[in-house]
């Protein structure tokens, strides 16, 4: 009986908190006030990376890594005049180590038979370097919150081989101040968590 009362009390408390936060957020919303946001020309964001997705061209399992993203603001007023949006072009450098899946990876070392046929003698989970180039479309929701979408492409390099992979990210920032924020992305090829410095 006391458990049921506790659950009901918890529901009421959580509901009240959500309503209160939503009301407060609505009151402070800046999405319909173009220009009410931190002023910056360049965003520098070092980040950690995690991915549940495999590498673009070999079976590889999940992975982790680190990288950096630089974004240049190119359209401070964005695409939609009545919204507080902006557009930037982002360039990055990301290193990801994939864990390999059930022994699958790429060939680390080949030896050759007398007829010159290559034989793999050592495998390794792959490491990739990605160079993403994206369009970053920002929406400044609140003094402390902004979200963005990032479609683009990434050039990747793995053990002498190059390729191109699609990039699609959805992200958000929690602004500690006008020049520093915590930035998270979800998407492909990897999730990221970093700190943005706005200059």
């Amino acid at each position, binding site marked *: 009986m006391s458990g049921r009362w506790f659950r009901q009390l918890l529901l009421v408390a959580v509901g009240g908190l959500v309503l209160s936060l939503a009301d407060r957020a609505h009151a402070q919303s800046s999405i319909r006030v173009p220009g009410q946001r931190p002023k910056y020309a360049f965003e520098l964001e070092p980040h*950690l990376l995690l991915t549940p997705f495999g590498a673009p061209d070999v079976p590889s399992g999940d992975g982790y890594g680190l990288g950096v993203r630089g974004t240049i603001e190119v359209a401070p007023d964005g695409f939609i005049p009545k919204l507080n949006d902006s557009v930037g072009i982002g360039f990055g450098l990301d290193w990801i180590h994939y864990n390999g899946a059930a022994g699958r990876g790429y060939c680390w070392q080949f030896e050759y038979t007398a007829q010159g*046929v290559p034989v793999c003698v050592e495998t390794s989970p792959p490491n990739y370097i990605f160079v993403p180039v994206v369009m970053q479309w920002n929406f400044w929701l609140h003094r402390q919150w902004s979200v963005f979408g990032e479609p683009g492409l990434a050039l990747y390099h793995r053990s002498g081989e190059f390729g191109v992979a699609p990039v699609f990210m959805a992200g958000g920032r929690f602004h500690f101040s006008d020049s520093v924020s915590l930035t998270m992305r979800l998407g492909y090829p990897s999730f990221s968590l970093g700190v943005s410095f706005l200059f």
Partner: protein
Amino acid sequence: MSRVLAVLGFFLFWSLCAVGCTSGGNCSSGAHCECFNGDQCFLGCDGDHCDQSCHNMNRCGTVCDDGCSSTCHDVRHCSQSCGSGCGLECRNSDSCGVICGDHCRLNCHDTAQCSAEVGADSEVTCQSVKQCAVVCTGPCTVNCNGTDSCMVDCAGSGPAKECKPGVFACGGCP
């Protein structure tokens, strides 16, 4: 306070992900591992006695220590390397490249090219293979059946002896 909780929440989420979302991915000793349908894949084995399979790819290979079995089929370029006491099969490929140790049993068939280096006391069969080329680093037997060319070399001691039509041996006929 809410800022601190939000930041802590983010870091907790990422810490849990770092532990839970990534995992080691070796094919453990004795396990069955398979790669199929794709461009390329190379299967490793974390020790001995793996059972590895590659099929329906452009390029695929298996790497293992001792006592492993490996099958590669319907792959343009197959690669198989193994220690001693392995059983290997390669079929329906443009090329099979094999390096294995002693007591290796290799069956190459229905393939354009089979090129292998095998250790002592190995047995190789090439059947319906355009070009079969084997280098034995010790006593071995090579059985060529339906091949356009069959070249068997005894490393360090020249060409193998043809024991009977299509059957070659290094270190004396069986």
